[in-house]
């Protein structure tokens, strides 16, 4: 009699779990985010608090802060972005290994904040695609952790190969970025 059972028989081949590649890959990615602390102003102080024992970012598997873009996949832009610094941020972002994400921490990184001035870039999303925006001036450490949890949710919903298919962000006619797979959230 022909065997029509296509399901996996654990009694024969041992215990495994069948799932989708995206689910597994994203599950791994979201619990091992390697942040790149782009500390530019006072928000960086709160970022340090997030890394320290009281708030403890290692609860989310993100404690490995790397100051080298080659070893990081999530840039946390914490602070005021000046036009002089914009070039540096863009270059560091380009050096990060894909897949990569960006968190704009605080009012300045998100919109320029209170710096309506000749020297300040009015939001880091003008030069790099941002995944999560955090409000606050500066945000509480809890707010950043909440943003990182939202980023984890977002990573979990992505296609794991999105960076292979949509990697080149080109400017559109309006001068804004065509954001590669980066929908705006929160």
């Amino acid at each position, binding site marked *: 009699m022909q065997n029509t059972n296509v399901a996996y028989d654990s009694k024969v081949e041992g215990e495994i779990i069948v799932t989708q590649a995206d689910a597994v890959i994203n599950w791994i990615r979201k619990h091992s985010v390697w942040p790149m602390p782009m500390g530019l102003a006072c928000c960086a102080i709160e970022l340090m608090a997030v890394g320290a024992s009281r708030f403890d970012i290692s609860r989310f598997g993100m404690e490995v802060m790397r100051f080298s873009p080659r070893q990081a996949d999530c840039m946390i832009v914490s602070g005021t972005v000046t*036009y*002089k610094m914009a070039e540096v941020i863009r270059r560091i972002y380009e050096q990060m290994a894909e897949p990569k994400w960006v968190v704009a921490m605080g009012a300045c990184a998100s919109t320029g904040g*209170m710096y309506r*001035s*000749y020297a300040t870039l*009015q939001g880091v999303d003008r030069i790099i695609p941002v995944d999560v925006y955090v409000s606050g001036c500066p945000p509480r450490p809890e707010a950043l952790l909440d943003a990182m949890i939202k980023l984890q949710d977002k990573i979990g919903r992505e296609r794991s190969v999105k960076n292979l298919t949509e990697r080149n962000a080109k400017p559109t006619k309006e001068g804004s970025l065509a954001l590669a797979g980066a929908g705006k959230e929160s």
Partner: protein
Amino acid sequence: MVESEFAQLKERFDYLSARQSVDHSAVDCPADKLVEFCTVLRDSLGFDLLVDVTAVDWDAQSPRFTGIYHLLSTTKHEYLRIAADCEDDIKPSLPSLCGVFAAANWHERETYDLMGIYYDGHPDLRRILMWDEYPYHPLRKDFPLAGIEVPLPADDVAEATGVAVSPAPMMGGPFVSSADGPMSQTEPSARDESWTEQEEKPTE
């Protein structure tokens, strides 16, 4: 500074004149005597620390620019403010104090960057805050707070992102706090809320 000391100073350097001041003693000094005067202040009068170098833009007046120097005597705990007018209103210049106080180096670079005062004899007069190619001096009175559109300092980033240095949105701004009243009621707020980014600012 005690009155008698100040009188002595004026007697010794006849080119000085008293300057109105609400806090510390202040003198006006001609630009060409500045180095000589500061050297004496440092060597024989105890003013051994240069605290600040800045400048004033008087807008339509002439002389338009005045260089300001703050000196501190760490032994007598006294400040002295020295003001020197720039003769040229178009390309204002002052003698550099780098040879007298090493601290003048970066302060003069900053004043050059933001006010556009050229310090003659400065060893390395480059911009210190804005990037080297920036064409304006942002703290001058004729420079708008929002800024003026210029290209980004990095060509390749400008090309990849299509971003330029553009005037900041000033909707309702500038945001100023009133000086009087308790701090809880003097938060910086928009003075003029009659226009938005969608609606043009009404012309007067």
